[in-house]
C-alpha cells in the first residue's frame, strides 16, 4: 500500500523548518495529527496534508521541576497542551514566557525547538 501522507519523519522535518502539518480525511473531513493510517472517525484510508496556523491557546500546563535523567539539566521547564485554532491539540514546551505567568487560555504560537538534538514542538507568546 501507499505510505501515509505524512510520516512522523516528514512531520518533524517540516516542523524543524517552522511548518506544522495536520492531515485531513478524504472520506469525512476529520482533522488529525499524523501519523494515522486509518481515519478514527470513518475508517477511510485517504489523507491529505493540510498546513496548520500554529496559533492556539493553552488548554493545560505544568512546570516540570523533577526531570528525567536525560533532561535534568534543563529543569525547570514548562510543558503545555495547546489547542490549535483548527481544532487539534499538541503538547509542547512553552518558551519565552515567565513560568509564573502561565495560564489556561493564554494565546501562544508554534515555535520550532530542538531539545537534546531532537526536533520538538515549542510554543512562544502571541498577541491575542
Amino acid at each position, binding site marked *: 500500500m501507499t505510505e501515509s501522507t505524512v510520516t512522523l519523519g516528514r512531520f518533524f522535518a517540516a516542523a524543524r523548518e517552522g511548518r506544522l502539518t495536520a492531515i485531513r480525511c478524504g472520506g469525512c473531513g476529520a482533522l488529525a495529527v499524523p501519523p494515522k493510517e486509518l481515519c478514527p472517525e470513518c475508517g477511510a484510508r485517504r489523507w491529505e496534508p493540510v498546513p496548520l496556523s500554529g496559533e492556539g491557546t493553552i488548554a*493545560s*500546563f505544568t*512546570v516540570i521541576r*523533577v526531570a528525567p535523567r*536525560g533532561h535534568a539539566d534543563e529543569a525547570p521547564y514548562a510543558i503545555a*497542551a495547546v489547542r490549535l485554532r483548527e481544532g487539534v491539540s*499538541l503538547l509542547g514546551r512553552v518558551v519565552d514566557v515567565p513560568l509564573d505567568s502561565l495560564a489556561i487560555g493564554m494565546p501562544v504560537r508554534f515555535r520550532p525547538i530542538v531539545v537534546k538534538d531532537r*526536533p520538538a514542538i515549542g510554543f512562544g507568546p502571541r498577541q491575542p
Partner: protein
Amino acid sequence: MRRVAVIGVGVTKFGRHERTSAELFAEAAADALADAEMPASRVQALYYGNVVGGETEKQLHTGPQAASVLGIPTVPTTRFETACASSHAAFRHAVMEVASGASDVVLVGGAERVLNVPTADSTEYFAYASDASWEQTLGLTFPGVFALVARAHMHKHGTTEEQMAAVAVKNHRHGVLNPKAQFRKEITLETVLSSPKVADPLKLYDCCPFSDGGAALVLASEDVARTARRPIWVLASAAASDWMLLGDKRDLSRVPATERAAAAAYRQAGIGPQDVDVVELHDCFTIAEIVATEGLGLFEPGAGGIAAEKGWTSLGGKIPVNPSGGLKAKGHPIGATGAAQICEVVTQLRGEAGARQVEGARRGLTHTLGGNTATVLVSLFGRD
C-alpha cells in the same frame, strides 16, 4: 462462560528490597498458593505483569524467569505490559482462560524492582510509557502528565490543592493500618502543601513513591472454587484504551478509558456504582484518585475533590476508597499493583482486613490505570 473465583492471595511488603522482581513475585505466589491450600502442581498457567525489568534489571523474558524462580518452570507463562496496569491486564486475560474452560486453576501476579536505580533513572524509565517522538522528547514525566490533568480539573471544576492534599492525608491514614504498606505514618495537609514541587501543581506528597514488591493470586473455576474455604467471585473484568498522545485527548480533566471500562464492568456484573462497598483505585497521584472516583460513577463529575475534602472516601465514610493506603501509602511496584489491589479487595470481602476492614463489605471494585491514561482496567468482585 463459567464463573471464576479468587481462592488465594499473597502480597510482599512494599518498599525497598534487596531481591530481584522474580524473587518478590515468587514469595507472593507461594503465599497465595498456601492461602488457597492449592499445590503448585495444579497450576495450569501463569499470567504475569512486569514493566521496566528490561531497564532496571536488564531482564526481558521475565514471565518464565518468575515461573522458574517460583518452581513451576513448565507452566505456560505470558508476561503482560500495559504500563502500571500490567498485572490487572494479566488478571483479565487469566479470568477469560478460566471462564472459557481452557484451565481450572491459573496463577496471576506481577512484580517490579526500581529502587535499585537512582530516581532520575526510574523517572526516565517510567516516562518510556509516554510517546517517544511527541512527549519524551519534551521531557514530560508522569507527574507532569497528571499535573496537566490536575490543572484542567482545577480550571473546569474549581478543585483545589487542599482537596488533592486531602487524598494523600486519607491514604496515609489508611496505610498506617496496613502492615504491608511502604509508608505507615500519618501526615497533615500542611505536610503535603509545603512539600517540594515536582510538576506544578503537584508536590512530592501528591505523588506515590517508587516501590519494589510483588503480588499474586490464584484463580479457580467454579467447581474447584466450591471446595475452597473462602472463594471471592469475579463479577466482571473489563478493559478500555484511549488515545496515546495527551494532545489527542479532548478534555484532560477526564479519563474516558476509566468511564468506558467502568461502564463495561457494571454491565457485565449487572450492578451499578451504588452497589459497591469498597474500592481500590489507581491513586498514582492525588488528582488521579479524584478523577477516578468521578469516572467510576462514585461521585458526579467535579465532585471528586469535595468528596475527598469531606471524608466521604475515608474508612467509615460513604464509600471507602483505598483502605490499603492505596498506591500513595501502600506503595506502587508498578508490575504488581493491579494484582495487589485485587488481593486487598478479596481480603476485604473475606472480612479479614483487620484494623482497616470495611464493615460488612459484600462487593468490591478495583481500578488500575496504565501510562498516560491510555489503558484502564476495572474489575468487580463479590462474596457469596
